[in-house]
């Protein structure tokens, strides 16, 4: 980085200049990516961060020459190792794709062809660029690649189909495919977004390892600021098709120059600090056809203050110091503005004292709840049983927020469904306000169900597309014969939507607005308890902060009790009073949020927490990471003794024989199920980042 200009030019693998991508339309082309320039240097990781629709993925697809028609690159230059790519034909690009640059896409479940063997799919990538290679050599190379990405039994796995691989293993296969010809440039487009945080840590380590072996540079496209902070050396922030800021990663996080970057960082809940309220960028991400003129960010900007220049003139990217550039008219004002925001967010520590300390009856009491799914069909009436919930017990006090965390398949969503009685429990009891809920039926059940409402993850599929927003919110009222138009308008107002929105349909709203509607609907019947099943997981960072703040203010206003199901531990830390950690249908740890996050007792919790990438602590947190080996075991044949022992770094002979009970091992209100509970996290020996 300190080298002189001439040798730095040789170092540049990919040089993108003034790249613009347009979507042809009736009223002229809409620019989806507008005048983007950046370099990627040899061996480095260059991060591109942005929310959905920012143009980050399109930019890299254009580099690969894979823009989906009718999108077109309308101007600009793309140079790979000094060779201009933008004028090349499809056939000429073929010899570069998969050879000099390769890409890893987001969702490993769909990236692989379901009807072709894994070995054949990797072999295809090898053979395309080595046409003379013998079948045996291709095969050997594929097995070598499978070994490189850490897939056990490559000889066997080679012959299997994608459906026989777990999500993490599939992403390894995709990485193997991308690395087949040792490309100079690897593009990773949200490579871990579809994966659990423990698997994300595994996959990121595989990526680091293959890059170390081959020296490939990497472009990491992601919406996850924490991930990019600890992986990338330099990074860029995109918004509305523009590159807003470029800087070395640590500088960008510690001292953001663009108000959008500063806003994004401030809207991120963090595990390492508590704030009273998250900063949220107002408004929503504009869609590509209706982007504001002037600076594309000005309607949402905290600095713009409706200044004419922001409305009228597009700020050009300008270098502020060597290696840093920003596209803002007033970037000098970012730092003082940010400092003011930070001060406003600081939480007075005493305010975090338990909000409800009275010893009143719990509003929700769950006792030994069990759920088994019958798997398979048999003439003789016995199939296999899949235990999804095993003896789950907890109490919840009114007005508090209990979060349930764990990897996918741990049973957290099943718990939500059983509590809602969308699924019938196999055993156990649930008491709401002291009444046994599981035994209710008929009109009584119908009446009591009002107390328990739900908000689901995906606001695109949870609203009926043919109903108006008014009807969506009114539906629960109509079902219970309490329809009142004014009440619907009130509910919409409570979630920050004007009553006129009621006439629109879900397709006219953005993701964040839809989730507001879903929340309004869930509040329609004045429930006591709201189950939020990954309710903010599908939202962009800036919108997520808005919804979290909304949920907290609604809780304070109506005295709501929340069950917050999430895989995002930073959000959990910010929103909860208590946390339950689940593994294979068991509760393995349960306690107040601060205790669980600061002194996690169970090794699984310790591993989960260490897997979270932090924007601020970057390198340090990566070194302390505990990387769990392997995937979740087959729930049909759970391990004997402690279910976690097969992946546990602290497992001993005892763990195989005795299943540890969930008891208070490290303080009265801090329950955990581990024979070695509370042994300090400093004893983390294995699995350190290599």
């Amino acid at each position, binding site marked *: 980085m300190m080298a002189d200009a001439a040798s730095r030019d040789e170092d540049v693998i990919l040089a993108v200049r003034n790249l613009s991508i347009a979507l042809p339309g009736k009223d002229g082309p809409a620019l989806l990516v507008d005048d983007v320039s950046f370099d990627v240097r040899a061996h480095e990781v260059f991060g591109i961060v942005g929310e959905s629709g920012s143009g980050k993925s399109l930019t890299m697809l254009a580099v690969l020459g894979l823009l989906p028609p009718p999108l077109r690159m309308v101007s600009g230059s793309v140079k790979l190792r000094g060779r201009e790519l933008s004028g090349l034909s*499809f056939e000429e690009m073929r010899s570069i794709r998969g050879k000099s640059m390769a890409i890893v896409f987001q969702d490993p479940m769909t*990236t692989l062809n379901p*009807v072709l063997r894994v070995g054949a799919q990797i072999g*295809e990538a090898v053979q395309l660029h080595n046409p003379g290679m013998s079948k045996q050599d291709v095969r050997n190379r594929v097995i070598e690649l499978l070994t490189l990405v850490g897939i056990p039994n490559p000889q066997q796995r080679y012959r299997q189909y994608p459906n026989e691989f777990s999500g993490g293993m599939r992403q390894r296969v995709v990485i193997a495919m991308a690395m087949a010809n040792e490309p100079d440039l690897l593009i990773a487009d949200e490579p871990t977004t579809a994966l659990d945080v423990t698997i994300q840590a595994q996959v990121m380590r595989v990526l680091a390892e293959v890059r170390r072996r081959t020296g490939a540079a990497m472009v990491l496209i992601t919406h996850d600021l924490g991930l990019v902070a600890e992986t990338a050396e330099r990074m860029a922030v995109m918004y509305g098709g523009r590159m807003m800021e470029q800087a070395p990663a640590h500088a960008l996080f510690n001292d953001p120059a663009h108000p959008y970057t500063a806003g994004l960082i401030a809207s991120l809940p963090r595990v390492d600090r508590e704030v009273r309220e998250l900063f949220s960028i107002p408004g929503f991400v504009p869609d590509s056809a209706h982007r504001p003129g002037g600076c594309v960010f000005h309607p949402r900007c905290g600095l713009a203050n409706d200044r004419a220049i922001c409305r009228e003139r597009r700020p050009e990217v300008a270098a502020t110091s060597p290696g840093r550039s920003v596209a803002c008219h007033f970037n000098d004002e970012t730092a003082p503005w940010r400092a003011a925001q930070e001060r406003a967010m600081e939480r007075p520590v005493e305010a975090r004292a338990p909000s409800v300390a009275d010893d009143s009856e719990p509003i929700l009491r769950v006792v030994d709840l069990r759920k088994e799914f019958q798997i398979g069909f048999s003439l003789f009436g016995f199939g296999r049983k899949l235990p999804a919930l095993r003896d789950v017990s907890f109490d919840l006090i009114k007005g508090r927020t209990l979060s349930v965390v764990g990897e996918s398949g741990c049973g957290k969503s099943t718990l939500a469904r059983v509590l809602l009685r969308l699924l019938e429990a196999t055993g156990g009891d649930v008491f709401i306000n002291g009444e046994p809920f599981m035994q209710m039926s008929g009109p009584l059940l119908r009446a009591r169900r009002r107390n328990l409402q739900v908000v689901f993850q995906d606001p695109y599929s949870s609203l009926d597309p043919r109903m108006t927003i008014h009807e969506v919110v009114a539906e629960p009222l109509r079902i219970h014969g309490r329809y009142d138009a004014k009440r619907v308008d009130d509910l919409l107002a409570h979630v920050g939507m004007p009553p006129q929105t009621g006439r629109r349909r879900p397709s006219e709203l953005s993701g964040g607005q839809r989730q507001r509607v879903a929340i309004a609907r869930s509040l329609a019947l004045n429930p006591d308890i709201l189950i939020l099943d990954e309710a903010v997981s599908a939202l962009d960072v800036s919108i997520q902060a808005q919804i979290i703040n909304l949920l907290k203010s609604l809780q304070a206003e109506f005295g709501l009790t929340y069950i917050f199901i999430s895989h995002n531990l930073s959000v959990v830390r910010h929103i909860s009073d208590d946390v339950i950690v689940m593994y294979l249908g068991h509760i393995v740890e349960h306690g107040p949020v601060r205790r669980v996050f600061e002194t996690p007792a169970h090794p699984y919790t310790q591993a989960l927490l260490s897997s979270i990438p932090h924007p601020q602590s970057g390198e340090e947190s990566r070194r302390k990471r505990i990387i769990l080996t392997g995937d979740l075991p087959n729930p049909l044949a759970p391990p004997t003794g402690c279910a976690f022992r097969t992946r546990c770094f602290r497992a001993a002979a005892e763990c195989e024989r005795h299943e540890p009970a969930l008891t208070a091992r490290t303080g009265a209100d801090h329950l955990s199920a581990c024979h070695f509970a509370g042994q300090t996290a400093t004893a983390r020996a294995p699995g350190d980042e290599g």
Partner: protein
Amino acid sequence: MLNLFLKRITQSVMTVLGVVTAAFFLVRLAGDPAVLNLSAEATAEDIERVRTALGLNRPLLVQYLDFMWRALHGDFGVSLRQNIPAMDLVVERIPATLELALTSFAVGIGLAFVLGVAMRMTPSRTLRQVIMWIALGRQAIPIFSFGLLMILIFSVWLRWLPSLGRGTWAHLVLPALTLGTYELALYLRLINASLASEQRQDYVRTAYAKGQGHIKVLLKHMLPNALLPLVTVAGINLGLLLGGTVVTETVFSWPGVGRLIVESVSQRDFPVIISGVFLISLMFVVINLIVDILYGFLDPRVRAA
């Protein structure tokens, strides 16, 4: 997989039993076979004699059980008109039916494949639309009009091909084309829609990112996936072709099972009707059984389930 297979076989047997049972009772609704098969001058004694000979004087349920019992042993009765075993009459016609059904099926699906792939590969929007309009236009013409048109052009005017009967390959051309092109539009639309949705899949993008070319991506990656929905529809359709080629068979005087059954209905030759229905339903379920097995063969996800 084996479990699934056994389940399918059980279902198939139940289906055939159900069809035969329905056929047995439905033909009885048409009236008393004894009366329908005797001339108008027959006396009450004549009728009674025939009823006794045919066993029609027994309760219906007994007749049904008796019929099923014999059928289980391969005895489907004797044709009332021709006095030879009914099943022999039907079996004799099977080769002709299979020949026509399979050929026109192959013509339809083969053409659809070639055209479907061509439509994906051509950059010309106009060509794509022309192909689709021709296929749809053909489907809009009823089989009998199209058949007669073919006879008029190729047999009457050009005198290239025979218009009637079965024997040489030349006899097969016109009926197979008539029926096959009718099927074409259905398959073509299906292949086209299926390929269009595969085109948007991530694995296609991945294949391009490896450096693969258009033709290989289409043939190696997209086509095997696009085949899956086609197999189901093609299976059902082949079954329909086996029993439902009556119009084509009539236009071209093709001696197939369909025509035999229609003739037998007008002659009230009940044993022949039931035998025909039995064989057709048997072929239908066998084809669908094959489709299920084929599906497992084509899609590893089904195999695993």
